[in-house]
């Protein structure tokens, strides 16, 4: 298995089904999502005044407009369910030595939007995937 690139991946199996969005959509210029990353799902305020992050990391992928054909490809992972365990590679909040945000690969619970989607022409506006219970996977070197 080759080292992962610094881009977004998604799939069900790191060995056999884990692809970049370009590969997934069979294009060379897939639009990257507007990704957010929260290292903690919540926080505690402690008795000594300190604050600690608790819970699994969370991430979201949001596209201002997503073509329905692409959504259909993504939706195959969910197969009608609202959540499935998936692997994703996404941007974190950390920076590398060149001050670029680094990517990391996670196992997570991937949540399909639970409510109706805003369909406009052949695209969906404001399409957002939510990933929670992010569990860090070892980087391939």
């Amino acid at each position, binding site marked *: 298995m080759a080292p992962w690139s610094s881009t977004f991946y998604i799939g069900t199996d790191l060995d056999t089904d884990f692809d970049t969005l370009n590969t997934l959509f069979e294009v060379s210029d897939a639009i990257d999502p507007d990704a957010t990353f929260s*290292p903690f799902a919540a926080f505690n305020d402690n008795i000594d005044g300190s604050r600690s992050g608790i*819970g699994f990391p969370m991430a979201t992928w949001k596209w201002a407009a997503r073509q329905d054909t692409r959504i259909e490809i993504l939706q195959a992972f969910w197969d009608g369910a609202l959540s499935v*365990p998936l692997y994703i590679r996404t941007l974190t909040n950390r920076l590398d030595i060149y001050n670029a945000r680094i990517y990391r690969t996670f196992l997570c619970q991937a949540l399909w939007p639970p409510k109706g989607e805003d369909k406009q022409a052949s695209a969906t506006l404001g399409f957002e995937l939510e990933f929670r219970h992010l569990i860090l996977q070892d980087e391939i070197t």
Partner: protein
Amino acid sequence: MPRISTGDDIDRFRSDGQASKLHAAFFIPHTIYTAVLASVPASTDMVAQISFTSGSGTLANVKQDMVLWVGTTSGGQELGIARIRKVPIAGTFYIGEQSAINWNVGGTIYLTIVDDFDMWKKHVRIDGTTIYMDYDIAFSDQHTVFSPVPVLGPIVTVGKIEAGDTTVTVQLGPETGYTSWVFGSTISTYLWSCATAVSFSSTSNIRPTAVFDTIGWHLVYCLVTAANGKTRTGVRYVYIWDDDNPPLSVFQTPELLTEDNKAGGCNMSLVFAAQASLAEIPDRALCVVFSEDYYGEGDAQEKISIGAVTGRENIIGIGRLIGESLTYDDESKTASLEIQGYQELMKRINGFPAGLLFKITPAVWTDMPAMTVDRALFHLLEYHTTAITIMDFNRTGDTRYTAKAFSPFASIWEQMQEFAYKQILANPRIDHLGRLWVEIDPLLLPIASRTYPVVLELEDSDLTGRVELPREVLNEVGQVDLSGVVVDGGGNGVGFRSFSPGHIPDRTGAVEVSDRLLLTDQTQANELAGLINAQKNNPYKPMRVKLRANNRLLTCFPNQAVTYTITADKNPRGFAITKNWIPRQRKLSYDSETGVMEVEFILEAETIPALAVTGDIPGSDSFAFPPLPGLPSLPPLPVILPGGTGPVTDGGPPSVLVHEAGAGLILCNNFGADENEQEWYTVNGGLSSGVYQSINRIVKTKNGAIYIIRCGGGYTPSAAKDIFIYRAPYAGGSFELIEDLISARIKMSAGSNPVWIGNIGFNPLVDEDLLYTLWDGSQFGLFKGAGDSFVDTGLVIATGDTACSISYGNGKWVITGNSFSSKMWILSADASTLLDTKQYPTDLKAGETRHVRISTTDKIYHYHNSVDNTISQSEGNGTTFTQDIGDDYVPSETVNDSETLFVTDPTGQYIATDRATTGKGKSTDFGATLVDISNLPFTGHNWRFANAGTTARWVAVSGGGYIYYTDDFFASAPMDARGNLLSIAPIPALTNVRVLEY
């Protein structure tokens, strides 16, 4: 044992990003054997066995305590369930006696044996006057040759085959520090087996690992064999899963787990969305809830579970499905399952009345020798329930004897509480891993016994939310009135009472009565009263805290603590509070959206004992009463000539007391029984082992009081073999300290210098009158009296003798010193006046350092002459001397309680003595000739003797471990009277003997 947190643990507890994934698995039993009912039992009532036909499976795989499902369809259980009480034979299942299954429904009745080992009660059957356990187990040696108790660790172990792996290795067995155990023996071997495991690291280790390659539930058995030959099998479960075959996912868990001290265990509430596998869960199913835990943020995220028991850190809780709440509407349906720890089952299963009596030689199920709370609990759990099969029983280790343990028809839980809490304030608890602990509450343990670990030092940064600590400044209990008994090794009790803080109740609070307890001695009773008082009046009420960490290292059971300091600046009242805190309740809640496991505790502050004093026992002559005034001088009393001091019974003397170097005082109250039928038991109530093992003098007064003394030099008060005098009101009663080095130094104004107890003598003609000497390096001080009323006679004898012999007869006390230049002092009856002094070389011969009086006459033998081995006799309390009346008395060097080394009958004609040559000799002619006692074996040790009231009846004991009785002064072979002695002291080193009743 709880594990003290390590630096790595604390780093993880204080890391960000802590989260968990939660899982639950329910055991679906495997079918072991199927059959159909061959014939309907004659009645549905009290059915204990059934006949079957059309069997399918391997009958040999059906094991005791498996479950029989009875149904009208194959695999059904709608008609009921029963326990397999013993392995079947072809055509017959033996089931726990029951009346709940209707065998008369007609049609085919299907029988299914499944491998579900659960908590059951075992019924008692009484046939006439004969008691049988579990229907047909007759009493034989179960209470003398005990079965082992398998301690095999948590009920369930969970392992995951990780992605890419084909196997997983799981840890079995108890945590380090715990092993299977057995009363009166040791564990010899372990034999682990599991038909579905790939391999074991070892099948004979206490805690092996096992490799599994198959998902699902596996049953692991361990056959434990004791050195006494008894065996016992325990059963535990292993659950294996992987990502492709996940267990149930918990949908919601607003209150995942509550572990509570008062409840005695934990319960869990799991809310599941509808999923197909829910329908497969049988009622009462075994359930394990476990987690995958993560600590650390970013690239430091680490998957690890932290807990006290190696290999079982991932387990949240283990219990049984005992109830559910089903919710549904037009859009969704959920099932809220109530999982309770085994304590709840034990509370709901009513056992038959259980009763045990202390009996040295058990003959029926209700007899228990050397009964302790642990032994009573073992009997209850082993013979009235299936607990020993399915869970660890971690006993109290308390060694106090109890005379009886009885519980009426009540739940098994209540019966355990009846046995344990009401006697020694120990409570049963079942932890989240399904292990039974019976422990005394931390706050009721003496400070020195609080050896439970402090798991964690909590800091403010470890806590989130707010801390709530109520404080009460007025006492709720004004006085603790504690009473109880000390039970000796014969099952006899003596009472004690204590008050805390004292006779006067405190300003506020009611009287708290705590009675019928088992105690150790008065000191312990007082301490316990103070502990109870402090606990009841703990000013700090339970404190609620919420931990920042997913910390499952800290639990409520077994006993453990945390430290936490509330600094003065945090406390609005301005004072600091630094204490150990005991976990009383633990709550886990889980947020499935964030993966956060919240941990809350209710903690109770440790207390230290309050003041306490000895209480008054109505109608007793306890030392609780103020000291009595000194006894008046006694008038001269008539001489008894000849004869003994009490009636002589037929057969042998009924009551004999011996001292054994390890076991201390051992009493037999049926000494006159046939050969080797004697029942011996220890009577060391109130004495520490250091004391009772170092006794070298025993006195029994006319009224039956027993004094035990360690004569010799006292140098260091803390030394185990310090000098002492203790008194018990009777043999078997509890001893009270009369004199020790500290008090002796005060009496002799010796400062920190050594003081010797020279010896003690008594007047056999009155109930209780004794005289003892203290030597301070230059003189004897004399102290006379009884009980705690010994007074200084005022007489001082200047001497270099450190030890002496003391006797009373014909109105005078006689003391002889132990120096080579023999001395003899004759004292008045009140021991206040020195009437005369005799000494070597005029009257006594050199080396005659011991004397023994003939009954209460004025005739005295002087012996222990190591110069020429002769003995002398004086008359008139030293008025005249006749030297060399006998020869060949080769004295041994042993000086302890020399009164047992040269003993006369009441007439003085018959003498039994040790000799350095053979250790035994006798004279039938007033000491003129001495011959070997050929009917006693040569043991290489001194023989010691006690006369039993007539010229012919004697008891002889040897350091080699023999006790003999003769009724013809050893003319014929004496009777072996050891009885059960070897069960108390396998190699008895007997150093003393007293006949208490003739």
